[in-house]
């Protein structure tokens, strides 16, 4: 699914308009853009900076400061392994390592076929189900190393 340059411009414009081009809403604007394209393309950052009248360096610094943003294209499926304390004490690191081995990528990497991006999150607040793995927003609780392979098979 390639987005044309024109569509890109249109979408960005409508997101900016949603927030009345308010500089204070920069984080939210970038979030909406990322939700749309699954990363923050350089062109769009330039456009945002112009529309808000904020220096590109400021937009860039915000885009790189917050963990939620990516400047690189990400995979079709986003895997988030929760490394919150509750998950940590229940062995979340071992689960993360199992996913890393299975996909042959490290945390915050993307598989070469652009199928999966692997990230970690510092707590999603579903501690009763820890360790927890979230794929495309769906929660998979009580994860164990030996369940990882079967779980990932469900995604194409």
């Amino acid at each position, binding site marked *: 699914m390639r987005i044309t340059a024109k569509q890109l411009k249109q979408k960005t414009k409508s997101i900016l308009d949603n927030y009345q081009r308010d500089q204070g809403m920069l984080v939210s604007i970038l979030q909406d853009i990322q939700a749309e394209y699954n990363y923050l393309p350089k062109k769009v950052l330039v456009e945002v900076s112009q529309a808000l009248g*904020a220096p590109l360096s400021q937009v860039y610094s*915000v885009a790189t400061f917050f963990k939620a943003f990516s400047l690189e294209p990400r995979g079709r499926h986003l895997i988030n392994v929760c490394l919150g304390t509750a998950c940590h004490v229940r062995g979340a690191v071992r689960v993360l390592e199992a996913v890393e081995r299975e996909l042959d990528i490290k945390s915050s990497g993307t598989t070469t076929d652009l199928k999966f991006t692997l990230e970690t*999150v*510092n*707590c999603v*607040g*579903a*501690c009763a189900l820890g360790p927890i793995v979230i794929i495309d927003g769906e929660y998979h609780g009580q994860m164990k*190393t030996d369940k990882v392979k079967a779980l990932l098979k469900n995604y194409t």
Partner: protein
Amino acid sequence: MLGKEQALNRLSSPDELERVRKSIIKQRDPDKPCITICSGTGCHAYGCERVAAAFKQEVKQQGLEAKVDVRTTGCHGFCERGTLVVIKPRNIFYQRVKVDDVPEIISETVLKGNIIDRLLYTDPNTGKKIVYEPEVPFYKKQKRLVFGNNGYIDPTLIDDYLAVGGYAALGKALFKMSPEEVIGEVKKSGLRGRGGGGFPTGIKWEACRRAEGDTKYIICNADEGDPGAYMDRSLIEGNPHSVLEGMIIGAYAVGGHQGYIYIRNEYPLAVRNVQIAIKQAEEYGLLGNNILGSGFDFSVRINRGGGAFVCGESSALMASLEGKVGEPRAKYIHTVERGLWDKPTNLNNVETWANIPLIVNQGADWFAEIGTPGSKGTKIFSLVGKVNNTGLVEVPMGMTLREVIFDLGGGIPKGKKFKGVQTGGPSGGVIPESLLDLPVDFDELTKAGSMMGSGGMIVMDEDNCMVDIAKYFINFLEGESCGKCVPCREGLKRMREILTDITEGRGKEGDIELLERLSTVLIDGSLCALGATAPNPVLTTIRYFRDEYEAHIKDRKCPAGVCKELITYQIIEEKCPGCGLCVKACPTEAITFMGKKKPVILDQEKCIKCGACYDVCKLGAIKVE
């Protein structure tokens, strides 16, 4: 854009609010059975949406709409047992409810009044089944003043909040109290900030009111970044109007007209529920211009965070609200004087705001009777980790850790031994077994080297390594440090390196002392509380579990069997039937199948200590040494 739809049923006086409330209550039959389904994020992960849909469909199919209500509510707190279903008014409590159970619940319990045994909660201590929600030990000792309404209201319906007395405090504050009187009441109540610092709320408000300037801002900090804590999310997600009501009262008291809710983007359900709540409050004229006809204006807008822990710090949060990088600044001048856009700004945490309507409604004296001399009211804790009843508990300040963990939490799973409880998140510390009788309040926890924090309580058992826990938090904080000041940026890096060395068998004599010295530098020299409190996990684990550090350094051993470089996995031959499960699970082919009924052999050379065999073995035939 949202303002367009006002006018419809806009309330223009407190009397009108009371009339609307009465008519809502009148329409509701208190004796009519109501099936409430917990729809917090925890239960969502169990599939509560499907259960709720099944209930609605079943009721419709059987034509029972007139006889029974179905309501999806906010988080009930007992996340361990989701999906939770409570049938009111009898408060029959069913746990672990699945879609398949729905028709039976309707035909047996709702229509005939029979109890379905298998869905009841069994008290593990007595083996007895418990029928009614208030009698479940997890709930019994709680005092759910702030959190209790979650189970009664659908967070997306403002009428549900009005039905339980919502916005009455707002009416009282606006029409019967002056801003100074509101502040006086909050001061007298002894309420202290629930976000972590424990600063007296009333004093903060007073300072903001007195600060010079016409424009003042109100902020609700819902950027709950503390890993392992989720009470703020459940509160704002399950009862958003209580937070809004608190904010409006606060705005009236300090003289602010614009408010912000800064909320984590990792909490999508909470964001949605707050959006809906704001819109509904605006339609009723409880937000916006001329609230309840009082002439007071206040509007609220949502900002979503970008996943940075430091943005929980007030000045960093405000920088982020201005569209800048979330870096804190030195606070020689407090944010109540110069905060957002350099204007006086009053920031409080979600739970603090939700306490305000209670104080205004019931009075400071009532509130001040609950708790300890220095810490008033209740506190919601997120009780997680190695504990049987994971969930959210609201208890009066001063309850002991032992009561919280063992009476409410039901103790440690699988008969393991309690080792420590981590309170206060990455800024807090680990409290050992010897201090379990410590009453939980702001000052007592600080004395023990930890802190209340926002209310995370992570229970750890004998299988958790305290050096690993210290490393975990320092690693977390190193990643979350904004990098602006040197002590925090460089100090945390060095601490992480030292701790990594210790956990990987390269620890040296003197490392513990070096960690302690570095900690002093961070405490004294950091710009904000992130750095200044960062050493707490290290200092408390050294203070209470020094022998574990020494075992790592001197004997090159991890007594809890966690630190990879210091352990080996071993097959217990007499227990291994040669089933081969571990052989399949091993990613490096380090385990060899030797035939049925013969124990497998593990090649230590090939073993990468991933723990896959340990996880998969059902017979406990693999041990960690």
